[in-house]
């Protein structure tokens, strides 16, 4: 008989400055975890830190700045291997006996390789370019490029070679796959609208495409995942591209799970499953057990869309990623998305999230090198995903070989996410990772869209600044251009795999 879980400790400490608190109770109303409450007898607001997840909703809205959130003060004796995290994970498991869940990308402090890669700048011999005065080309085309391009004999401007379908991006950043169901309607809407406004694309995720979003279809990449949720002919016809999801960086090798409580009427209609049933995506596609099967599915989709849309395949970055990517390209994929181990998720077992997969920096570099070696690099565009945090990460990813990047966590953060990592509870205080109508109204899609467009705009300007600094005025000149990168604090082996020199060389 389970009573109080004595071994569990609060993660955070809520501090309230009594001189600043005006008992307006905004915090009481806004916390979905019931941390704050009003004591009517004593006319004071009190806080119970034990349920605080550190989302900062209360602190952000407090009109006097009276609330702040600190890490919980229970200090363990310092230990190199038995960290607080290791201890607490065992306490949780001992009390619950279940699989520990986590959300968003891994929070482990392994090396973030982006931070060990530095960019070049031009001086003296190779002048830098001022992006505010000179034209800079960020326009990126994703899709299969031809082996050779033939021009018209009479008019050199005309291309005779038939070109495969391409996606045109104004900025080499797209919104990653986040299913409607794992995130709210308002969040999905904001992503679709922002993608359209910024001239890029948003991925629908494996939850199908809600009827209301079909009008943004021209800016959407729809996913065909192992659960095949929402996949019908209309779905395939409305979009700009189709993506077969084989794996996901946060949880390679396992499938997806949306709990039945989150499957309301709208989600049921969009995913084409009964209301209240769990939406289970199995680990493998049960009709893909070999690379030939994958090829068959790719071409089936191409047939269904009459070869008018690029077909993308998303794989998680794991060992032998180069071989897998090569096979995928030869199987007919026009775009290959590689999702690194820092990628986000709505819910995954913590051990899988934190221990399975490899970082995107090495994966993208390895895949780009291998495909170039095999002479097939032009047959598919490469997208890097998995924990891209800034425009600098974008530039480095492209320099390591990607054509463009997907951002998931960064987009959510732009909309207000504070990375409390509790998406799987459905109690997102920011109205993003929830279906609770009391919470979803907190995300005004207009405001969210504005923030996303602002993010892309800011990053685009920064990318141009960095490119200009390197003396480059077109993104194509950056793609796979390892010469512009140097490594610091990386081993020889790592430098070799990344294909870059060490700083100083």
């Amino acid at each position, binding site marked *: 008989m389970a009573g109080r879980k004595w071994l569990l400790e609060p993660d955070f400490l809520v501090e309230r400055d009594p*001189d*600043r608190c*005006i*008992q*307006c*109770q*905004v915090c009481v*109303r*806004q916390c979905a975890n019931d941390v704050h409450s009003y004591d009517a007898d004593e006319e004071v607001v009190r806080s119970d830190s034990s349920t605080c997840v550190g989302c900062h909703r209360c602190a*952000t*809205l407090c*009109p*006097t700045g009276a609330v702040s959130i600190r890490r919980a003060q229970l200090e363990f004796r310092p230990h190199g291997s038995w960290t607080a995290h290791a201890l607490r994970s065992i306490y949780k498991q001992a009390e619950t006996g279940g699989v520990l869940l986590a959300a968003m990308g891994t929070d482990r402090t392994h090396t973030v390789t982006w931070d060990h890669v530095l960019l070049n700048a031009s001086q003296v011999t190779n002048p830098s370019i001022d992006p505010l005065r000179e034209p800079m080309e960020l326009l990126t085309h994703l899709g299969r490029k031809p082996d050779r391009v033939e021009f018209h004999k009479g008019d050199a401007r005309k291309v005779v070679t038939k070109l495969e379908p391409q996606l045109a991006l104004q900025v080499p950043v797209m919104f990653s796959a986040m299913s409607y169901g794992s995130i709210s309607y308002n969040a999905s809407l904001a992503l679709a609208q922002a993608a359209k406004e910024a001239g890029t694309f948003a991925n629908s995720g494996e939850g199908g495409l809600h009827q209301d979003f079909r009008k943004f279809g021209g800016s959407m990449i729809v996913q065909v995942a192992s659960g095949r949720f929402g996949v019908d002919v209309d779905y395939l016809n409305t979009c700009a591209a189709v993506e077969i999801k084989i794996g996901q960086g946060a949880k390679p090798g396992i499938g997806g799970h949306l709990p039945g409580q989150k499957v309301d009427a709208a989600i049921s209609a969009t995913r084409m499953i009964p209301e209240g049933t769990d939406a289970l995506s199995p680990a493998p596609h049960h009709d893909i057990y070999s690379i030939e099967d994958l090829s068959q599915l790719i071409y089936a989709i191409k047939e269904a869309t009459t070869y008018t849309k690029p077909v993308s395949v998303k794989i998680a970055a794991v060992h032998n990623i180069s071989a897998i990517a090569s096979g995928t390209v030869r199987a007919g994929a026009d775009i290959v998305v590689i999702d690194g181990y820092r990628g986000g998720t709505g819910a995954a077992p913590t051990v899988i999230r934190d221990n399975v997969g490899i970082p995107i920096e090495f994966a993208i570099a390895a895949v780009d090198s291998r495909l170039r070696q095999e002479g097939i690099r032009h047959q598919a565009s490469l997208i890097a995903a998995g924990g891209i945090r800034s425009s600098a990460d974008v530039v480095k990813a492209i320099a390591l070989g990607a054509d463009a990047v997907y951002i998931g966590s960064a987009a959510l953060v732009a909309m207000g996410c504070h990375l409390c990592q509790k998406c799987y509870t459905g109690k997102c205080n920011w109205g993003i990772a929830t279906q*609770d*109508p*009391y919470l979803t*109204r*907190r995300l*005004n899609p*207009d*405001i969210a869209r504005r923030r996303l467009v602002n993010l892309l705009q800011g990053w685009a300007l920064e990318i141009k600044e960095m490119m200009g600094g390197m003396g480059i005025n077109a993104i194509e000149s950056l793609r796979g251009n390892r010469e512009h990168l140097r490594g610091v604090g990386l081993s020889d082996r790592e430098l070799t795999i990344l294909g870059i020199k060490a700083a100083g060389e």
Partner: protein
Amino acid sequence: MKRIVAREEFCIGCRLCEVHCLVQHSKSRKIIKAFRDEREKVVPGIKVESSGHVSFALQCRHCGEAPCIEACMTGAMARDPETGVVLSDPDKCVGCWMCIMVCPVGAVARGANQQVASKCDLCIGVATPVCVANCPNEAIVLEEDDE
């Protein structure tokens, strides 16, 4: 003239609008001081109604054909000719509550001392009403009234 419009679908029921309305109409205009000393003395002109997860903020609509102006027996309730805002003059009001009787939105309240009528004044004198400026979810917006 401009009117405040409440967008029900975005109201999160936080009541920051009520907080800021009180501060703006207090003597000190400083939030901590106002709440410490003047909480009982100022009735916010805006009120958030909530039922389940639905909520929205409501204040005087500054109607073009205001029933309160016609019902007012002292002429305290009148329209400011420059801004078009309906204002209640506390020096003229005798607290007969005819305005409360006729306002279809229930936007007029008995003031803190229960002596005179109290309602939204569209933050006359400030460029943007404070409820509009401080709503964290843009659920309260200022719109030009085409009428």
